């Protein structure tokens, strides 16, 4: 089947300066109930891979370095 690749903005922004995924942190990935965060091993930071967020905030609250900011997903902002 032919497919199109559509872009979405995602609600989670990770501050790559503050993120310590390169030191082995995976807290946000561990706690997210929707399992939408991942670690980019090349860049050593967490990022949001899937636009499937409940804007519930465990990722932001539990991040040890306050690297995560969750905003309200665009469609309901």
């Amino acid at each position, binding site marked *: *089947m032919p*497919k199109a690749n559509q872009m979405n903005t995602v609600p989670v922004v990770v501050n790559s300066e503050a993120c310590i995924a390169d030191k082995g942190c995976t807290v946000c990935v*561990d*706690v*997210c*109930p*929707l*399992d939408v965060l991942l670690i980019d091993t090349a860049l050593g930071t967490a990022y949001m*891979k*899937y636009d*499937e*967020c*409940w*804007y*519930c*905030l*465990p990722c932001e*609250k*539990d991040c040890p370095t306050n690297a995560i900011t*969750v*905003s*309200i*997903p665009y*469609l*309901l*902002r």
Partner: protein
Amino acid sequence: MNDKTETDEFLEVDVLVIGGGTAGPMAAVKAKEANPKLRVAVLEKANVKRSGCISMGMDGLNNAVIPGHATPEQYVKEITIANDGIVNQKTVMAYAERSFDMINQLDEWGVKFEKDETGDYNVKKVHHMGTYVLPMPEGHNMKKILYRQLRRKRVQVINRFMATRLFNGPDGRISGAMLLNPRTGETAVIRAKTVILCTGAAGRLGLPSSGYLFGTYENPTNAGDGYAMAYHAGAELTGLECYQINPLIKDYNGPACAYVTGPMGGYTANAHGERFIECDYWSGQMMMEFHKELEGGKGPVFLKLDHLAEETVEEIEEILHSNERPSRGRFHENRNTNYREKMVEMHISEIGFCSGHSASGIWTDENARTTVPGLYAAGDVGSVPHNYMLGAFVYGAIAGEDAADFCESNDFAEIDPAEIATERERILAPLKREDGIPPHQIEYKLRRLVNDYLQPPKVTRKMEIGQERFAEIRRDLENMSAADPHELMRANEVSFILDCAEMAAAASLYRTESRWGLYHHRVDFPETDNAEWFVHVQTMKGENGMPINFKRDIDSYIVELDESERDAYQKLRVSSTQTES
């Protein structure tokens, strides 16, 4: 994709709890307390540290039965009336009788409830008749406290595995579950003497009006998994036509939250700022009045706080912006909504199944037993109406204790290897299919159809057309393709959602009357017909794989209703704002 799945890992436990949100951890802890020698595991699709409805905490107990404020009998009455009489009172009573002990247990574990100067629980009136709401202004630590108990009682925790199907032994008894790892695509099998389903509501049935698949009222991890698994395991479900529909902040789709603001002077109002319902407690009748006002000339509907004193507003902000759905402050900020100046626009949620708020669930008795031996259900997926968080805890405890008992006298039932192979193939198929429709596209269409055809007001012909569209979606599932294990999880959830949609349509069509206000408002059968329909409507999987429905008598009441109270919930509208309906 390397296929590691031919050699399924095979685990064995006595009690398998599926879902580690609210009811689940309690069930596991209580099973262990009942018999520390049992092997008890909690299986969780996410991570028990932050999973389920209470992932960030909770604003309060919505149904606390506390001596001095309410008796179990009063509570049973209130819920019977709020649910238009269709209740198995024994199940509500079993909750009510343990409600206070559970609050004390949670208090002892470190959950912080609001107390007055003398140290008594500070209960508030929100319901139409009695007083049952106990605030938890510092309710953010629920999950931490439960996790500590899981550790202390040595419960085995299995995170990031979702259950996809249950297995039955040759005699029909429950024998285990199939699991899928949503990160690796690995499958596994757990053999168990008992299974306790605590998988929460069917939160992804309808599509929220924002159109965002995951902007649901319920935690969207709860796609209806447990409803579908129980159905395929041959269990009876009940009240699926009694949808969950809630009044929420428009677009944000979280509670507005009259339970918190009501006792502090806030209320639900129309565009003129007038109160139009006597009571903000969520019920089908309340939702009916809400719906009328929303669609009427004085609509839409708002949460009104702009008349409150500065300290009160600050206190409300402190609770609502830090606890249960803490992102709501950001939502209001984006739209320049300040409670002091503007009323907050409200709307109604998508439809779902949930006994926590409404009454739709897997049929259980007062011991949390389903109709399949060895299978239990507790929390939102169970069938004790308006059970909320404390009900999830109490029924989790009841299920855990009864399951521990069941293990004493029952050994493992066999799992048929052929069934495992079939199930493995079924759940992995979308990953193996390289070219096909992505799960999110099918999900969007399916849930849009649910809105178009099943959402009340319900119309017979529309629901039938819905069934035709669902049959087409069922064929589309044969063509669904997942790009990675994460999408494979979503693909499997889509199949749960479709099962739920088919069950919702069948049960709604079966009950040819109107009941529960908006929840089951059938335009072509507008009257409540007690002669024919004062019964439970049950759903099971039929021979042809489609839902069948039948009636189940209501057990004789253990608490009689006074004639004068019977229709208290039919009189929710403020009389000066009477509309033509």
